[in-house]
């Protein structure tokens, strides 16, 4: 059966914004973290940006457009089986790719959340360091490092998959992530119903506002959920 080929919006604007800001901020966090020194301040800022992006992505997975929603692409056994049998129809994340998406999100949450409590035994620590003991922070630092190694492996896998699609399947996966558009064979059954622009914009603002609030709270040591100790009164230390 031949369907006329048409262009559809496969990735909505907030999703694309999320994706590319995540690429930039993760790349920046890696470089600043590897170089250390005074760049650690920037590593911490990059971490907060990543935290906000992840909070947004998790919310968007519930209130975003069809292809962004977890329920639409979560790699269940049935979906994976259908995909491997060549029976999967869809334009968003395919079930195998979805496995990688979920893994990337879980590992990014891991590396980011442990980083909030971590310390480098030099001069830097995450914004929530004061909420835990040094011992716990050291343990978090160990996991921060392990998640980082896993993240590097997944990023490489991600890039290899894109290269694989480009070379062997002659499919450009990068362009749709930039423009949001993808040329597909028209197949009504698989075309997601797009909601009105106003509704998407409203939900975008809502998810964005919550994400900003999360970042603000964490950057301020957990306010207002954690009671902030008042600045210690100026202690008069003896002259010795």
């Amino acid at each position, binding site marked *: 059966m031949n369907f006329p080929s048409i262009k559809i919006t496969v990735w909505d604007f907030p999703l694309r914004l999320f994706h590319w800001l995540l690429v930039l901020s993760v790349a920046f966090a890696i470089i600043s973290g590897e*170089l*250390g*020194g*005074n*760049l*650690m*301040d920037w590593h911490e800022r990059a971490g907060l940006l990543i935290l906000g992006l992840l909070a947004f992505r998790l919310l968007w997975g519930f209130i975003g457009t069809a292809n962004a929603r977890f329920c639409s692409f979560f790699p269940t056994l049935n979906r994976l089986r259908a995909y491997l049998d060549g029976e999967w129809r869809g334009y968003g994340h395919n079930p195998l790719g979805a496995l990688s998406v979920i893994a990337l999100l879980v590992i990014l949450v891991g590396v980011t959340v442990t980083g909030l409590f971590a310390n*480098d*035994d*030099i*001069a*830097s620590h995450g914004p929530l360091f004061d909420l835990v003991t040094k011992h716990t922070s*050291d*343990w978090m*630092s*160990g996991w921060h*490092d392990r998640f980082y190694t896993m993240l590097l492996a997944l990023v490489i896998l991600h890039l290899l998959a894109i290269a694989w699609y480009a070379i062997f399947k002659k499919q450009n996966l990068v362009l749709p992530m930039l423009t949001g558009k993808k040329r597909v064979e028209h197949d009504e059954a698989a075309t997601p119903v797009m909601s009105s622009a106003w509704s998407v914009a409203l939900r975008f603002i809502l998810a964005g506002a919550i994400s900003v609030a999360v970042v603000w709270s964490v950057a301020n040591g957990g306010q207002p959920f954690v009671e902030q100790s008042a600045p210690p009164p100026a202690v008069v230390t003896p002259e010795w």
Partner: protein
Amino acid sequence: MKKFALAILCAAISTSAFAGKEEDQQIKVRQSAYTFMAWNVGKIKAQVIDRPEAYDKNQVIAAANAIAAVANSGLSVLFGPGTDQGTGWKKTRLKPEFFKQPDEVRKLATDFNREANELAKVAQGGNVGDIKAQFGKLGEACKACHDKFRVKED
């Protein structure tokens, strides 16, 4: 026979009890040295980077001098053979590679001492921007050795 067995037992207990005593002591002292330096690093960071408005020239000089003094105190003595194993205040995280790459160790240690001494010098000058820049270099010197010769946190 009984006496002999007792002597063996005593020897066994004493050697196991004292095995690594000197190594553990070295580890303990060097852990103390680095902890003390970290305390001073923290004070400089608080005054120069986190809250420059709270900058107190004399306090920063005192902290930088303390770091330089510890760096110049001959810490290499505390890295005797076999001290990649053992427990000071806590288990050491020194990698065995430390003893296989003496040239690299010397380079990293010399870098660290140079940056620490430079920080003490810059602190005297009292220019917060200069102190901040040199403070970053010291942090990089710390990190270079941690990355190479320190076991990752478990």
